């Protein structure tokens, strides 16, 4: 019996694709999957702390320059932000369904769902592009670059510093997420996943849900409550 078959208990072997093998330092495939999942969760913790710093800065400056924050947030486009929220939540839903279909060996369905997720992510970025160019055109920019006239309150530049840093870093995460989704889409096309092995789909899914979750906090804080 091959080492792989031994590690999986023989009968389970056929459910894994031929390309898959258990790394030599794990005793069995399930340990490897568990380790990967745990690693991703820990990584997500670091992401929350990274954004945590920005949320903290938001809270401090909002209480410090409350009138500025109220005034400045009226210049954000709620419709575009709202559309992006719907787009991103939908993409999280299709991502979750893609994990489910990968678990159920429905390769074609997985591909379609991942493609929709990817399209939603792209649409999010397109909307973001229009929002950004509008802000830049109006001079609604961070700190020293702020040039927009007729603001009654003192420090709108701080609001836009927070806005651009938070949405910018979030946007970078969306781009990275698109790369990851494309990567598992291609691997899915090569029949690498099955009900026995779908860890990468699940792990990318976890990351994508976090990207969605961060936006779910960003949208009301920046666009709605000011």
């Amino acid at each position, binding site marked *: 019996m091959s080492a792989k078959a031994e590690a999986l208990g023989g009968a389970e072997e056929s459910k894994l694709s031929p390309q898959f093998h258990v790394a030599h330092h794990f005793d069995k495939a399930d340990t490897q999957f568990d*380790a990967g999942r745990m690693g991703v969760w820990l990584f997500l913790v*670091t992401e929350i702390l990274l954004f945590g710093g*920005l949320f903290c*800065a938001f809270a401090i*400056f909002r209480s410090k*320059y409350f009138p500025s924050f109220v005034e400045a947030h009226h210049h954000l486009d709620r419709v575009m932000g709202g559309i992006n929220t719907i787009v991103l939540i939908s993409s999280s839903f299709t991502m979750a369904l893609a994990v489910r279909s990968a678990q159920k060996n429905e390769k074609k369905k997985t591909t379609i769902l991942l493609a929709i997720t990817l399209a939603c992510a792209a649409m999010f970025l397109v909307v973001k592009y229009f929002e950004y160019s509008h802000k830049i055109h109006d001079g609604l920019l961070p700190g020293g670059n702020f040039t927009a006239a007729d603001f009654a309150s003192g420090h709108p530049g701080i609001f836009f510093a927070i806005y651009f840093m938070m949405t910018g870093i979030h946007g970078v995460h969306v781009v990275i997420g698109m790369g990851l989704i494309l990567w598992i889409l291609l691997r899915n096309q090569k029949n690498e996943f099955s009900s026995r092995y779908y860890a990468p789909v699940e792990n990318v899914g976890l990351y994508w849900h976090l990207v969605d979750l961060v936006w779910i906090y960003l949208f009301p804080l920046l666009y709605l409550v000011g």
Partner: protein
Amino acid sequence: MANTATVDELGHSPAVRGKNYLNQTAGVWSWLTTVDHKRIGIMYLVSVLVGFGLGGIFALLVRLELLTAKKTIMDASQYNQAFTLHGAAMVFLFIIPSIPASLGNFFLPLMIGAKDVAFPRLNLLSLYLYWIGAIFMLAAIVTGGVDTGWTFYVPYASGVSTTSVISATFGVFVMGFSSILTGLNFIVTLHKLRAPGMSWYRMPLFLWSLYATSIIQVLATPVLGITLLLLIFERAFHIGIFDPTLGGDPVLFQHFFWFYSHPAVYIMILPGMGVATEILATNSQRRVFGYKAIAFSSVAIALVSFLVWGHHMFVSGQSELSSAIFSFLTFFVAIPSGVKMFNWLGTLWGGSIRFTVPMLYGIAFLFLFAIGGLTGLFLGMLSVDLHLHDTYFVVAHFHYVMMGSTAIAFFGGLHHWWPKMTGKMYDENLARVGFALTFIGFNWTFFTQFILGTRGMPRRYYNYLDQFQPLHAFSTYGSWVLGTGFLITFICLARSLKTGAPAPADPWGGATLEWKTASPPITENFEKAPIVTLDAYERPAEETA
């Protein structure tokens, strides 16, 4: 049964095929593409020693400049760069990765009977990120230096300084990812890859300290990442978050910075405590006294470390109430530290102590950490800190902890595990000379600075009053002894690679798993996968009888 062996049997397994992790494959490329935790550990070891050398040269230059008031060898702006680069190199290139990434990488899987860490490729990536970060830091030196101090305080770092702040801070930002990946890897490895029978309470205490360290690395480092990113954007694009002229808040930078950098102090010291525990246990030939107390005090230190950052800001305009709370919380760190101290002493008590070279470092650690730790209490107390803040007392305190404790533990660990890593024994007499000069030179240099500090000499000053000159000169002479000590240690270790006698599997009579395999270990770590049947530091019955 064929592929497994109990620890007892491992000790008697026949000699190996002559292949080990060092000569399994050859060539630079085989090292640069390796995923073997032992090779990655060795590459980290060489890298952090280079960082230590670099930081050490800047340290000697700083001390030389301070030999006399006014100009000795460099002007004021060069002096500012020298102490900044000394601090930045020592903290980010040396101490933070030192024990976890080199000794930890090498020994964590060995000590739990695993073949590798959970994510070997991520481990290699972490090394590459460290190198990339180091290149950005070195680029900063070449392209104009950095003169902000290693803490990069704003608004000086974000606007006033004309040096290469962006390159240096970006380097630190990248090295942060390296640190996070190492921590993440260790946590998952300890959870998922312990050998059969290796329960949590059977792990060597070094691993408990690495576990606590990893938690801090994972939770605190991202905050440094976002802080430095904001600083870089502030400097490059004037976003205003830290710039008071644009409505920003420079004290916010200090909060962010110390939210990472205070826990980071425990990233530095906890692994040193772990190494000291291993050395003391091995060389007193008995089980560690108060195993669980030491294990949980590591975790307790990690948790408390997140609640005390404000004690760096007692004079930064923080409210009196917050200062009082932070001061109160700071004293809690003393409890788990004291628990460790007394349990180490309890381990020595009644043990059959052997004064091997590593043991000398272990005992020096106890002595120096006691001084470093207790002087921390002076600084945690508000009324005393007002007078001692930003004086040489602070400099002496953290050098007793960072250098006297962590670096001494690191070199102790290096001597302890050197035979295992390289397969060579070093000249113990020469190593003793190196140790003695290091220990004397260290106290000579830094105890003097406690006195300087209490007399009011402010830290980071280029010039000083004449009354401080004799003590400054005395401290500088000490730094030469200290430098000589390290030089002899390096020569001793380097020479052993060529002329050292072959090391046996277990030169010190250790009870932990890494001594049960050949020196140096084979690529797979163990001939047969170990099954653990003994508690930590417990010896098989026939040995103790």
